[in-house]
């Protein structure tokens, strides 16, 4: 169904329910939908499973969501940060679960979830702790591969550079990262766009995320920078 444009981030995230699995775009702060995450903190819903490459910085954005005890479980590849101890403390006290996934496997699992692929084989992690308990198989190239499962989520929170009224998206440089694949793998994809333009203003050859993957758009014209908030000593809320 076609995209709807909402007035506020709070309106956009208010449909998110307790216990949801939430994909959150970004790699570190690049491409992180900080305003949507803060709206999710205002919304207050708990018991979330969050998928992100990392586990947040400082006490803003994803780290603030974790600090606010809304996250039951993180699925990520690198939950350490030089700028945050929020996840670390909760993890050490057994207050948050962690599913550690190699970064490329995480990306492919999300892509598979969006593409209707329930499972696939990959050589990544074979022979390591992260393959323990997983099905593996030797293929005709005589290499061993482990079976990994697609990730499908209830919601995706996405930050993009430009959206058009049809939900087509473009991203800025390496802020693209996990955002386009996460758009595909959620039942509801919520996007904060720095700019919203009319249909047809994005070159059809240069659309990164076609509108079919987007459900809600919010215009956030001057998104905050996580590192600037941290430097300013801000914690959310």
């Amino acid at each position, binding site marked *: *169904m*076609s995209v709807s444009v909402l007035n506020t981030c709070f309106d956009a995230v208010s449909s998110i329910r307790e216990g949801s699995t939430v994909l959150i775009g970004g790699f570190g702060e690049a491409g992180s939908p900080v305003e949507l995450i803060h709206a999710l903190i205002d919304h207050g819903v708990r018991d979330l499973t969050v998928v992100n490459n990392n586990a947040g910085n400082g006490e803003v954005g994803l780290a603030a969501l974790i600090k606010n005890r809304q996250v039951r479980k993180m699925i990520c590849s690198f939950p350490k940060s030089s700028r945050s101890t929020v996840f670390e403390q909760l993890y050490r006290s057994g207050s948050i679960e962690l599913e550690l996934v190699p970064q490329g496997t995480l990306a492919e699992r999300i*892509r598979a*979830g*969006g*593409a*209707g*692929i329930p499972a696939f084989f990959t050589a990544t992690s074979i022979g390591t702790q992260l393959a323990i308990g997983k099905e593996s198989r030797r293929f005709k190239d005589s290499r061993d591969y482990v079976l990994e499962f697609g990730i499908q989520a209830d919601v995706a929170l996405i930050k993009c550079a430009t959206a*058009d*009224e*049809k939900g*087509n998206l473009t991203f800025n440089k390496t802020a693209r990262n996990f955002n386009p694949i996460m758009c*595909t793998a959620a039942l509801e994809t919520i996007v904060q766009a720095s700019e919203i333009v*009319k*249909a*047809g203003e*994005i070159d*059809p*050859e240069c*659309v990164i995320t*076609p*509108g*079919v*993957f987007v459900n809600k758009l919010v215009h956030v014209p001057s998104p905050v920078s996580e590192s600037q908030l941290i430097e300013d000593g801000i914690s959310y809320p």
Partner: protein
Amino acid sequence: MNISTVSRSGWTREQIAEQVAGDIADGSYVNLGIGMPEMVSKFVPNGREFIYHTENGLLGMGGTPKAGAVDLDLINAGKKPVTIVPGASFFHHADSFAMVRGGHIDVCVLGAMQVAENGDLANWSTGEPDAIPAVGGAMDLVAGVKTVYVMTQHVTKDERFKLVEYCSYPLTGSGVVDRVYTNLAVIDVTDRGFMLNRLAPGVTYEEVCEATGAKVHIGKTEGINTNA
């Protein structure tokens, strides 16, 4: 009416297309099969907009180009020249079928050789030994698209059943069809089997039963003869 007149009864092809279009919600992402299903785009109700997907890498497909404006690099899955609408996007084949397989396309409308009462669809091969097998994207569409509509004449040109208990032709997908639009009626595929949804003007339930190779149930809609 007996079965020999069935193929000339009820809705015209255009009217069938109109029935289909009327059942598709505003803003839907729609994939129209080659042939008769393409006519659906001519009957989009006022105030609604469908966004057309074509498997070969385009969302936001428009109509046929004017003479002289044909671009051989801008075609649909039937390899016919098309245009784009504002807000269109191009993508490669794997991304295109990720949309299909991943359940992102709302409705596809396909033709059929046979539809069985359990929703099995046969529309790609007669299974004859010397036939050149060619499946295209049909199996992907029926496996992946949320709602699968079939649009067909109720019986074959030589007056054999197309709506049947079991398909005799090779399947395109198993239990995949949601609704069948024919010249005689609109028939839902349900857990109970074929269920009459509505009748074409001047066509009776009994006539539909006679022209159908499986039982046609009437459920809550019993007695309804929506010759609207």
